[in-house]
């Protein structure tokens, strides 16, 4: 087991280097550096441009900048935002809980609805229930996030007035950030009604962000279940007179879950990508919005640091998923 973890972790190193390399050079391929972007119509004298570039170290050869950056990262220094002059890690830690909160809720939403929907569709294969589940999930999968979000806002927030349009908490509350997770912070605070407000603010973004993973989970569960339900041991179990629920719930589902868990693991990456759009629409103060802004402002340290941190997280989740297989299915237990 330990050997597996070690060898699996070793794979992280090239991925790390790749991510750092790509994020470093891709943003520099985009024309215009942080200073030019800031200058505007007025223009800047060549001397001043050179001076400002020098101050930011942008006048050094690219490879020197790159290796300096790698060195800094290895010593735990992700740099300072060119725009706000705040350390990247500090900004990330302040904003990341919002993204996690939203992503976890979206994932829960996807799994809690997607798993049963997929199982039911598989068991009732070919019936109207099956067609409905599959039809809806296909639609959900194809839904452009932006459009879907605006549609929900117009219906539920503007017309019906059930949910707030955007934000994390009504402006009527001020909750001192303790954990950064609004649901927890509002519970800790003694502001009556703040928790309910936080929940109401979470509903629409959760649905929007969870829609695609929900569709993926439901479809994956269904096809995986169908495969398992056709296996001999299921027929045996039925022949032994086990109840339908026991067969489906215990014997079939446990085996069907393996590909589903893989997909859920992969969906973490998709979720974080979707969070960028979702956060922008719902004015959700997470890292997605922060990254988008850093691209527009060519805030190199923020973009590089942000991508690196998120990539680390995705890699960690995938590692955990690999380990989970063993728990689900003893046949894949590692490193005997």
């Amino acid at each position, binding site marked *: 087991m330990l050997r597996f973890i070690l060898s699996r972790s070793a794979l992280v190193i090239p991925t790390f280097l790749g991510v750092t390399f790509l994020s470093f050079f891709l943003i520099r391929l985009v024309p215009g550096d942080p200073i030019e972007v800031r200058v505007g*119509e007025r223009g800047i004298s*060549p001397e001043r441009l050179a001076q400002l570039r020098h101050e930011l170290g942008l006048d050094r050869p690219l490879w020197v900048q790159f290796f300096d950056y790698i060195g800094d990262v290895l010593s735990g220094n992700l740099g300072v935002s060119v725009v706000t002059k705040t350390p990247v890690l500090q900004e990330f830690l302040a904003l990341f809980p919002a993204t996690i909160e939203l992503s976890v809720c979206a994932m829960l939403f996807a799994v809690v609805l997607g798993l049963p929907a997929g199982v039911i569709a598989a068991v009732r294969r070919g019936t109207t229930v099956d067609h409905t589940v599959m039809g809806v999930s296909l639609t959900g999968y194809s839904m452009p996030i932006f459009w879907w979000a605006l549609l929900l806002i117009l219906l539920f927030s503007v017309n019906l007035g059930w949910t707030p349009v955007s934000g994390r908490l009504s402006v*009527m509350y001020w909750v001192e950030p303790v954990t950064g997770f609004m649901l927890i912070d509002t519970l800790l605070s003694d502001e009556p009604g703040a928790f309910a407000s936080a929940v109401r603010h979470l509903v629409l973004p959760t649905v929007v962000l969870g829609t695609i993973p929900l569709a993926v989970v439901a479809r994956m569960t269904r096809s995986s279940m169908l495969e398992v339900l056709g296996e001999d041991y299921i027929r045996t179990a039925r022949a032994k007179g086990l109840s339908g629920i026991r067969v489906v719930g215990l014997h079939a589902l446990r085996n069907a879950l393996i590909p589903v868990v893989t997909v859920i693991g992969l969906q973490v990456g998709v979720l974080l990508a979707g969070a960028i759009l979702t956060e922008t629409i719902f004015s959700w103060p997470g890292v997605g919005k922060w990254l988008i802004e850093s691209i527009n402002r060519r805030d190199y340290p923020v973009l590089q640091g942000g991508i690196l941190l998120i990539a680390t997280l995705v890699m960690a989740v995938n590692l955990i998923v690999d380990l989970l297989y063993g728990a689900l299915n003893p046949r894949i237990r590692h490193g005997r």
Partner: protein
Amino acid sequence: MKTALRGAAVGLALAAGFTFPVAAKTLVFCSEGSPENFNPQINTTGTSFDAAEPVFSNLVEFERGSTEVVPGLAESWEVSEDGKTYTFNLRKGVKFHGNQNFTPTRDFNADDVLFTFNRMWKEDHPYHNVSGGEYDYFNDMGMPDLLESVEKVDDHTVRITLKRVEAPFLANLAMAFAAVHSAEYGETMLEKGTPERVDQEPIGTGPFQFVNYQKDAVIRYRAFPEFWGEPQKIDTLVYSITPDASVRYAKLQAGECHVMPYPNPADVEAMRNDPNINLMSREGLNVGYLAFNTQKEPFTDKRVRQALNMAIDKQAIIDTVYQGAGVKAHNPLPPTIWSYNEEVEPYPYDPEKARQMLADAGYPDGFEADIWAMPVQRPYNPNAQRIAEMVQADLAKLGIKANVVSYEWGEYRKRAQAGEHLMAQLGWTGDNGDPDNFLNVLLGCDASREGGSNIAKWCYEPFDSLIQQARQITDREKRAELYREAQEIFHEEAPWFPIAHSVWFQPVRKEVVDFRISPFGRHVFEGVDIQE
């Protein structure tokens, strides 16, 4: 929602440790983004200026909703005979805000003015390098070259001496970058070893004091009871940060905010018809134009430039591209600025005459030229690509083959300022409401150098001498006379095809009272009320 907002005020009051009367009024502004910081000396974006606006006062200020300069922290001022020395008499008894780390022990005085200017000006000032130490606007407005000295005469008198006469100087002092900071706060934060707090937790003498800020989410202010001006009618001001324009509109409809900036052009019609929304509008302090590079053939010949001014159907561009959000430009100055010359006769749209003039200039069969289109939407030009195509079609009728060219935005400006183009679109939004800020910055000889903002690269002595002369005198009527004459020369020489001045749309909810659109594109909440 009304109750929610009232509750908001109470919630805020509790949070800030203050109590308001039960009927506390909160105004929510759905701002478009997060500020870089709260010090207008070191930032450059409208978003950041808006965030600092409620907190600070200047020596002189722009009257709300106008480009007129009025007394601020300086009650009055005298200008010396030679026009180089300004003596400001400071207002007495002006209080600074306080916060949990700082309680002011004295009123505003001359030291604060010196602290403000010296931070930006003097490289050895202890604050000069704090928070990056870039003072873009101070530098861009040419202050380091202009200032001779800033002196304290006594506690309530400051004398500023200039190296040369510069008429727009007073208007510069009303700009955001010249916001007056507390010297005492500066010293206190320096002692505590946290000088950057000055830029993140601002202390000023403005109508609202800063309460707190959550990045990308919300900024809160509350009315400052000891403000030197008129007391505020609202108690709390909240900026609810909402980057997407459609979502801002949804929030406005749902009553989650009272005022929103930058509506989607597509939503404007619906806003006009919405009974809960008051759609205000105003001509922007800007101009969008197509500049001819007057240093390159064939645009060295003014007949060619005039011909092109007649060959392009401006009305069609206004109708198709601006769709009600712009008016035709004839002058380089927007009509909201004093000294705008209404007597300039616009070039008619006359392709036949244009063809004739081109033939006279030696181009009977036209020529080949590139026409540059910015890759981004700007207030003065919502779709440069589309305009380029329309110009291309109009010019094709005269046999001119125009190729549309575009670069990434930063690259675009750099190349245009270097004069690499033949025809390039660009525009300008005014900083201080002074005609010099358009005519000199965009068309003066000094700006025509490589890298300068005069992208027609047009240096015409008769024009330049007029605007340089106008800088040297402080009598406004005389200046206006010179600028009007300069606009006639501009028209005759035609270094640009002026396209349009934008029209700003400002949707506010019906219950908002006395909101005035700032000609500078700022959002100002001083004096605004809510009628429940």
